[in-house]
């Protein structure tokens, strides 16, 4: 009845992709390796946001703050302290998670848009620190030339490093998604009042989810620095937060891996459409509207329908392809 997590049907496509991704840098030009790495980082960020938005139903409108905090923590520790890289690497996501705890602690008292707006305000205060504290953060110029060890400073070195941690994080997220905690979070998303009526401390669960999600956002921030050797206040500006929120919606926020798709599409669009026209946001807008209209129930609705159909198609995985529309 309930299927094993390690069903071979699930495992083989993952493995195939992984093998493909491992060999890809040998056959594609360096720039595509780099763009794939950008997608990995963005995807991890979007995935971490989706842990609270898609699986937790929280209006986490300023998630980029934690990405930025992770990135800044890592860059500052590398530049200003003598700590070895691995220590900085390990500590930074915890700093992001601490920021997540601090902001989340205030926010979980509120619901919906109020939650969102309080978070935007608190997040903007952190943004203001990065933007204003010139001596530490160099203000809006940002910090550049972060000393990343040589073995991961080349494009392919960074690619494999990022891929490794992306896979690690995805496995961890997958386990959490399917744990009692993950299941309970999804229940809270669907119906928080009902959850507290079955004895679940909703706020504590939400806060825990925020801390976990912000931890992963911190990891994404660290990986960003590994890839780009720079940090700047854009990383924790609300515009980026809105963008990754849209990535989750675009890819399908009730799905586990949907945000990866959303991130890939957005990054690819801005890179490759940007080559041909400066109006790529116009094209993104039109694309979004087409998507909203011509996937009859929207991306997420589409997914819901597939899920509903799932019991009818149980024995025939091959058939399900057409449902992608």
């Amino acid at each position, binding site marked *: *009845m*309930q*299927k*094993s*997590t390690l069903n071979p049907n699930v495992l083989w496509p993952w493995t195939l992709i992984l093998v493909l991704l491992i060999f890809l840098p040998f056959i594609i030009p360096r720039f595509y390796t780099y763009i794939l790495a950008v997608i990995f980082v963005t995807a991890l960020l979007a995935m971490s946001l989706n842990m609270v938005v898609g699986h937790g139903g929280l209006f986490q409108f300023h998630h980029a703050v934690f990405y930025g905090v992770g990135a800044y923590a890592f860059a500052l520790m590398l530049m200003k302290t003598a700590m070895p890289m691995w220590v900085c690497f390990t500590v930074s996501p915890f700093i992001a998670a601490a920021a997540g705890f601090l902001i989340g602690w205030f926010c979980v008292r509120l619901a919906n848009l109020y939650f969102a707006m309080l978070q935007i305000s608190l997040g903007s205060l952190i943004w203001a620190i990065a933007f204003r504290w010139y001596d530490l953060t160099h203000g809006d110029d940002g910090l550049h030339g972060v000393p990343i060890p040589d073995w991961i400073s080349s494009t392919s070195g960074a690619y494999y490093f990022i891929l490794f941690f992306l896979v690690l994080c995805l496995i961890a997220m997958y*386990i*959490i998604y*399917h*744990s*009692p*905690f*993950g*299941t*309970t979070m*999804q*229940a809270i*998303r*669907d*119906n928080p*009042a*009902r*959850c*507290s*009526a*079955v*004895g*679940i*401390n*909703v706020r504590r*669960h939400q806060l*825990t989810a925020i801390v*976990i999600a912000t931890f992963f956002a911190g990891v994404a921030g660290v990986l960003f620095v590994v890839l780009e050797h720079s940090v700047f206040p854009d990383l924790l500006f609300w515009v980026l937060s809105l963008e990754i929120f849209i990535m989750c919606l675009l890819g399908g926020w*009730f799905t586990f891996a949907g945000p990866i798709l959303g991130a890939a599409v957005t990054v690819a669009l801005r890179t490759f459409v940007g080559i041909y026209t400066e109006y790529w946001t116009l094209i993104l807008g039109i694309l979004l509207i087409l998507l909203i209209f011509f996937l009859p129930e929207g991306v997420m609705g589409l997914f*819901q329908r597939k*899920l*509903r159909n799932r*019991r009818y198609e149980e024995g025939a995985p091959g058939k399900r392809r057409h449902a992608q529309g």
Partner: protein
Amino acid sequence: MLKVERLYKSFDGFVAVSGAELTVEQGQLVAVIGPNGAGKTTLFNLITGMLKADRGRVVFNGEDISKLPPHEVCRKGISRSFQIANIFHRLTVFKNVQVAVLSQQGKSGNLFRPAHRMAVHETNTILESVGLLEKADDLAGSLSHGDHRILEIAIALGNQPRMLILDEPTAGMSPDETAATMALIRRLAESQGLTILFCEHDMDVVFNTAQSIMVMHYGKTIIQAKPEEVRANKDVQDAYLGGEGDA
């Protein structure tokens, strides 16, 4: 087992509950009746901690629970269903109940074990007892209205409560479904020794099932007594004839 003492609650000047009194004994089946807007749902919300009373106390097994948040009330052993189907639409039927069972077992915070191997037996037992085992893998949102209501009860049972509060468990059901559901409730009460507090519009159902009936009107308790006494009470007749009648 449960004692409600002179409970008051108002919203923006509108008094929803004013001086409600209620006593539920161990193992009893108690019904709350009253016209629309009499404050039944508000009373249940006050008992389960969803709302905070302005005045008065709720005592459960000798302990004042009126200040506790809902999840702690639930841990004391009071579980409830809701008037409007209140389930987890995007989860399967199995998971709907499993969430409650995991919560009861204190495992909701477990981050690393795969949930699909946990609490399977308990969950299936509950699903079997309410007759939803067949549909365990369906999405809860896709169930029929009647099944939604049953699932509500199943979720409430997931907490292995000592006392079950059901807010209009048969609302919107056909007569056949109503009969089946009431039979289910009686069966549960007998087989598991549950104490059940419920409210209901269908008077036949109430007077056939309940062992004690509390009548509310304009937020006040008019009377709590055995069905036959309630039937004979003058005030109750006035309340029902003078009020809007039952929907």
